[in-house]
């Protein structure tokens, strides 16, 4: 199953031994910041990185449930999803995407500095990442507030203002736009009489998914910011160098992952049926 299965004749610790930094045992002096049960820095680092990656896979599946629900309901209620998406602010969404990409860059730089053992630089980039992350969360909070004011919180006095919907003049263009199972069908929602009642119920589903997905994402961001804050002190103390920067690297991987989730959330939530 594993790629090493066939190639490695001896176990990973045997490989580590070949690199010469092993066999400290509990008799010899154990190197600083090498946990007692590891033989070498390489072993420790590779364990940590594999651990983080495996964890990120669980995160994929965690968000995956929401994505599945999203796909299903979007294909069931395309109009409602368009109507819901039009309630979101593309501008803010785009800015936030950019902010998050910047923060990924600063995070990557922090990891690089850690690899090079530059304590001050690590801390600097961490602070930059924290600031950018907080900006993202701030903007998100503003958006949430708007939704609250506009009664777009599902289950809580949800009400979709009719005149917020983009009105289309003239005949519906829908029939010119065939689409598949998973796909939006039309430019906008023509709004004569009773239709909106349904749209309203199903738009509530959209907003539930919106809050569910962005909310979980935000929770991950908050945890990430917390972890970054916690990292500042050890990095200033020079804890990290080429041998030992697992914490910076692991938290960095996590941060990038959260960025990737947003990369998918942004078009799925903000950009549905914008054209037309």
């Amino acid at each position: 199953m594993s790629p090493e299965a066939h190639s490695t004749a001896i176990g990973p610790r045997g490989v580590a031994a070949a690199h010469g930094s092993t066999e400290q045992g509990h008799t010899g002096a154990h190197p600083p910041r090498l946990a007692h049960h590891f033989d070498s820095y390489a072993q420790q680092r590779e364990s940590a990185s594999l651990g983080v990656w495996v964890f990120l896979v669980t995160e994929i599946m965690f968000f995956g449930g929401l994505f599945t629900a999203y796909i299903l309901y979007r294909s069931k209620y395309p109009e409602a999803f368009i109507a819901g998406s039009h309630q979101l602010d593309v501008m803010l969404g785009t800015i936030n995407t950019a902010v998050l990409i910047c923060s990924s860059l600063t995070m990557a730089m922090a990891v690089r500095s850690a690899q090079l053992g530059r304590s001050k630089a690590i801390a600097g980039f961490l602070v930059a990442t924290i600031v950018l992350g907080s900006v993202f969360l701030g903007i998100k909070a503003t958006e949430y507030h708007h939704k609250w004011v506009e009664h777009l919180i599902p289950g809580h006095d949800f009400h979709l203002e009719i005149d917020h919907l983009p009105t289309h003049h003239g005949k519906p263009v829908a029939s010119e736009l065939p689409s598949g199972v998973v796909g939006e069908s039309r430019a906008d929602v023509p709004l004569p009489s009773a239709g909106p009642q349904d749209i309203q119920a199903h738009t509530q589903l959209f907003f539930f998914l919106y809050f569910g997905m962005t909310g979980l994402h935000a929770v991950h961001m908050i945890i990430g910011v917390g972890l970054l804050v916690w990292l500042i002190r050890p990095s200033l103390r020079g804890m990290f160098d080429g041998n030992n920067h697992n914490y910076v690297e692991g938290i960095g991987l996590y941060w990038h992952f959260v960025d990737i989730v947003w990369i998918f959330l942004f078009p799925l939530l903000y950009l549905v049926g914008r054209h037309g």
Partner: protein
Amino acid sequence: MTAHSDFPAHSAFPEPIEEAPEPYEHYLNHKYGLASWLLTRDHKRIAILYLISVSFFFLLGGAMAVIIRLELTTPEGDLVQADIYNRLFTMHGIMMIFFFLIPSIPSVLGNFLIPIMIGAKDLAFPKINLLSWYIYAIGGLFTFYALLTGGVDTGWTFYAPLSTGYTNTPVVLVALGIFITGFSSILTGLNFIVTIHRMRAPGMTWFRLPLFVWSHYATSVIMILGTPVIAITILLLGAERIFGVGIFDPKLGGDPVLFQHFFWFYSHPAVYIMILPAMGVVSELIAAFTRKPVFGYHFVAFASIAIAVLGFFVWAHHMFVAGISVYAAAIFSALSMLVAIPSAVKVFNWTTTLYKGSISWDTPMLYALGFIGLFTIGGLTGVMLATLGIDIHVHDTYFVVAHFHYIMVGGAIMGYMGGLHYWWPKITGKLYPKFWSKVGALTIFLGFNVTFFPQFILGYLGMPRRYHAYPNEFQVLNVMSSAGATVLGLGYLIPAVYFIWSMRYGKDASANPWGAIGLEWETTSPPPVENFDKPPVVTWGAYEYHESRVQPSLPPPKQEVMRVT
């Protein structure tokens, strides 16, 4: 050695290490006090913490099973009220599955043995290991608290919209308990995967790994890929219940069948979380008590992986009559047939291993052989359930109840008991009375069959499950089942008593009381804190029960190679 009259010296393989100097330091006695347990990062002590907590939940779940069976002795439903009965089987299912069987073998035996079996000092992330126990305990406390306040009555499957809109029991509390415990499962799986990849001793190649380790690797894969889905499902369920949004509620445009998809996407693979570790145990036992290499090692190893992967493709076989499309039903039925094949491979390879073995009738082996037989019955009835035409009739009847108890009680628990009996001398350094352990094993086997065999017939007769009262003509079989359950319950008491007894009064175990091969038998019983006094280097494959192990002058066996024609 000869002092242990209960366990005659199996001196086929000499004790690998000299008897330790009398009071020697091991993981149990190197520190004392509650804090040294609750703050430990030693995988062996954490395993003990798990052992205590899963046993607690087993007794709790078992106690509920006893009341369930008592209630079902009469058709009227007169012992407890319907509401209570519903809570009983729900909490029975939840405790047994989420808080007992899923963590049992991996977190107790796996935790204790994997590092030793691969020759490591500990799991890759000892702190996370401890954390996972705390998470488990907190989740357990939530659920236990919910139980004290009355428990939930949704069935362990939590189907919407019953669970989201109709019951007024503390669903969110229990759901939260399961959600939290899920993370403990994830962390355990993560730890195992990294440990197996990165912590193997020099010379411990993938195909020298004991099959126990392979099956735990497969289990861990399921844990990390499946468990997050139940977590998100539970979050959605909670959100729907608390905020009244309709992701599963048809009144608001949601779809109740989507809940079932999500739930079974986890819960079907989860049944393999429960059985794979037991299969790993059985592989160890069969090898040790036939003194033979497991027949078809590579096939058995890859069968574990195949089960883990294929197990994710079959979930909707729980939903054949739940309004899914017939085409989807057909796909899932066909895929369910495929997943039976790796199980078949295992069963046949184990049986063939017996051929020309040196078969000992020690207690662990009795459990292992019981496992094979009962798992075969349970598994084949599973295949019957996966057959579309049959499931229309027997879905949600006692046939299903019998199927899964055959696999989970007759299979997984037999494996767990066998493993406990096999490694108990290693874990505690004590021997238990041989006679009573055999009496216990036979009582459990008999009680088990009397309890659950009649349920197959009940199921085909059409008795639906989760029924608190039932038509008169089902009574005879139900009484039989209840009688069996009493025997079964008493059967479980026997090991409970002598295990506890042995911790104080049992004779000391030698390092290798069974004369078995494996790194865990090459260290003292109980093992020292960092598992080995000298870091081991592996030069043998697993189960190399070969004369050359005793007489080094003999040529070693050719490495077993996979030959596929």
